[in-house]
């Protein structure tokens, strides 16, 4: 008996059912695009203008519906995991369908804007896929069994210990420890998505080592700073990873709605000019 995996994620849902569906879609339309010279021009114009445009719009509406479907976790057709799988792979298919629809040409107008917005929306989605594929496991391993609050509490304890230790240190060492305690910052906003700030505790520890004072208090302070630095680095990594897992969605959702609006404007405009006239 083959051991079925205990859990197959949305990426491999139902043996890549939606991967095959998307591949089939892209390959089929790509083949028509490749052999378009063999078909009458007016048929091709209609097929790639109105046909593929309508198909891409339908796919976009399906993708957007995922935002509604995921809020009613148990209601609605199909499993939510299936919906997510379809959302991801049909979204990736859009990366090909839209350029085929636009003839690989991006113009500086509302039509080019629709093109670009859809592509950017899908790209932010790909970040989401990457983050949700890698980060949950890494967040867990980074915490080493502690909760976020546990880690903060430990830093606070170390701070108190350092404060208590401070009077016993040399003047220079005391300055370093006090400055470190006053200056420590954890977390951050948009900046932290891209860059983790320098670890002040690590720097303070290095300064303390450079003083070269070798007594018990100093050694202890240095040890405490090392532990604090490790904890803060883990906290920063934790916040960065979890912020990334949120931030892409804060881009993805407004972008997708804006893309949908512009695509509708583009489509209505094309229809207003008359079916078959462009």
């Amino acid at each position, binding site marked *: 008996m083959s051991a079925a995996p205990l859990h197959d994620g949305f990426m491999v849902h139902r043996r890549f059912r939606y991967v095959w569906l998307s591949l089939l879609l892209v390959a089929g339309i790509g083949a028509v695009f490749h052999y378009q010279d063999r078909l009458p021009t007016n048929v091709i114009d209609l097929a790639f203008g109105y046909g593929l445009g309508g198909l891409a719009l339908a796919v976009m509406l399906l993708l957007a519906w995922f935002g509604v479907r995921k809020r009613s976790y148990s209601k609605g057709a199909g499993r939510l995991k299936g919906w997510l799988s379809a959302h991801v792979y049909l979204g990736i298919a859009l990366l090909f369908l839209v350029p085929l629809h636009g003839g690989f040409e991006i113009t500086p107008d509302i039509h080019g804007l629709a093109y670009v917005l859809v592509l950017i929306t899908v790209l932010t989605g790909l970040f989401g896929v990457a983050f949700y594929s890698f980060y949950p496991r890494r967040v867990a391993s980074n915490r080493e069994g502690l909760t976020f609050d546990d880690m903060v509490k430990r830093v606070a*304890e170390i701070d108190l210990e350092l404060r208590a230790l401070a009077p016993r240190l040399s003047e220079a060492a005391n300055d370093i420890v006090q400055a470190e305690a006053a200056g420590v910052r954890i977390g951050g906003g948009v900046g932290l998505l891209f860059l983790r700030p320098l670890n002040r505790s690590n720097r303070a520890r290095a300064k303390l080592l450079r003083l070269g004072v070798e007594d018990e208090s100093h050694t202890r302070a240095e040890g405490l700073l090392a532990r604090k630095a490790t904890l803060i680095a883990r906290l920063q990594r934790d916040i960065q990873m979890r912020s990334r897992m*949120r931030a892409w969605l804060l881009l993805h959702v407004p972008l997708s709605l804006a893309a949908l609006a512009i695509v509708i*404007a583009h489509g209505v405009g094309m229809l207003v000019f008359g079916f078959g006239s462009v």
Partner: protein
Amino acid sequence: MRLLVRHRLRRTRREGYVERSEILEADSIRIGRGSDSELHLTDGRVLLHHATISLENSALVVTADPPAEIEHDGIVVAQAELTPGHIIAIGPYDITCGEIEDGCDAVIGVELARPMGDAESALRERVRTPLLGRRRSGWKIGGAIALVLLLLGVGLPLSTFIQSPSPEVVSGNTDTDQDILRMAETLWVTERLSRVHDNLEAGCQACHVAPFAAVTEATCLECHNTLTAHIDPHASFGADVNMEDGCASCHQEHIGPDGILPGVAVTETGCIACHNGDIDPGDGRSLAKVASIAEHPPFTLPTPPDSGLKFSHASHLVPQGKRGPDGARQKLGCVDCHQSVNAGADMTLPSFESGCRSCHTLAFAAEDPNRRLPHGSVWKVQGEVEDFYAAVERGDIVAPKTEAPPRRRRPGQSAAPRSFAPPEPVPAAQRAAAALSGPAVKGQCATCHVLDEGTQVADWDIAPVDAVHTWLSSAHFSHKDHEGEAGCASCHAVGKSEKVSDVAMPSMGTCLDCHGSAADFPEVDSTCVSCHAFHGTVGQGASVDAPQWFTDTAGMGKTENSAYQVLANILKNTRF
């Protein structure tokens, strides 16, 4: 030892404490977080067994249990005696010595002096996680953006389409409101209009007369109402010819500034689709096969008629020049005889007066060297010559006197003039007849003209003159577009031409030297329509030699009926 422990829970408003008392009895009292410690301190910073209190010589001694540390007044010690007024710190707790009370060996106060809460909450205030804080969602802001975009991208342009164009818009007198609407309209434009349609003042609705409907050719023909058709609507076409879209089959709009004029696309698909040697348009003509511009068939030039003229380009273009009436030599060029007309597009056949007279003056009589024969009619010439000699006879015209040579005499004879009888005057009619049949008149005419003998008054007449005026009937050619350093002779080889019947038109190959290969001369326009016009214009006939149906369909755009009829017929009779 019996120890009274006063747990100081919190300070009161005055200088007191809310306390909870506890009495511990043991020889030595262990302090720690562990449950087996007699003095149980719960803070996490206290070790399970942190220190031990014992009574030694009626003094309270606190001893640290390594690796725990205790502090005595801020100094880390291994052991300290607890005396009033001094503090021993165990982790976050301060232990003080109190007044001894009845029934107790010692009294101590225990206070959580450095509670974790403050430090932890202070640290928590420094933890900034704006992206994690509330359950944020992009739906609200995204929805707002989408609404605005929909209003701008759909509502605004659509509103301009639904309302009919106001007179201001049509006349171009747009105020600010209308400008905004015009800008809104252009939001949907795929690619800018062609340059020739820049003048469409009514905006989109100039052509897109109704929303959700394609532009029909009837709209095109409202303005382009003098065009004639090119294709016989009753003919059948090959499978590649698709005229389904009417005007738009060839003229596509919104594909750039030059888009509306069909260029290479039409050359390679449109024209050649029919001009492939297979298609019979049904009017008895067959369309020549033109596989590509480079394989263009040779010119079919008209056969030159009997010109009735004698002319040698070669003798006029001799390098040393020709002697003019004043005797000086002058080198002749093409433009001395052929003038440029139609803004440089065409070159004329020289007329006598503009081309020849300056050298061939047609002076005919010594009596008046400025008297010239008229050109164009033998009758006029005869009248002029007869009038002239009559006038001479009457004495109206006196030949200029020439100085008589000095007289010479023989030796011995007188120098007195001998009297001669004047010559017998010749009658004017006789002199005129002699001139007309002699070199003065007949001879001069015969220099250029073929003469028919024995017909007219002077027994001769000028043979009829004829020439080809339009060599290329199916194509237009502009000399202006081709003028360059190469000069006329690069196409027209007349340097050795002795006869009028020599055809000086270049061969197709001369054209194809430049027009044949777009790769060699990318700047040279080399499409079918570079030389051949497609549509004719009402009143001017068609550019292509017009079969009868051209006139049938001329002006097809003028009434809706004819325009539709023509195109409907095209579609009806076309097998796609």
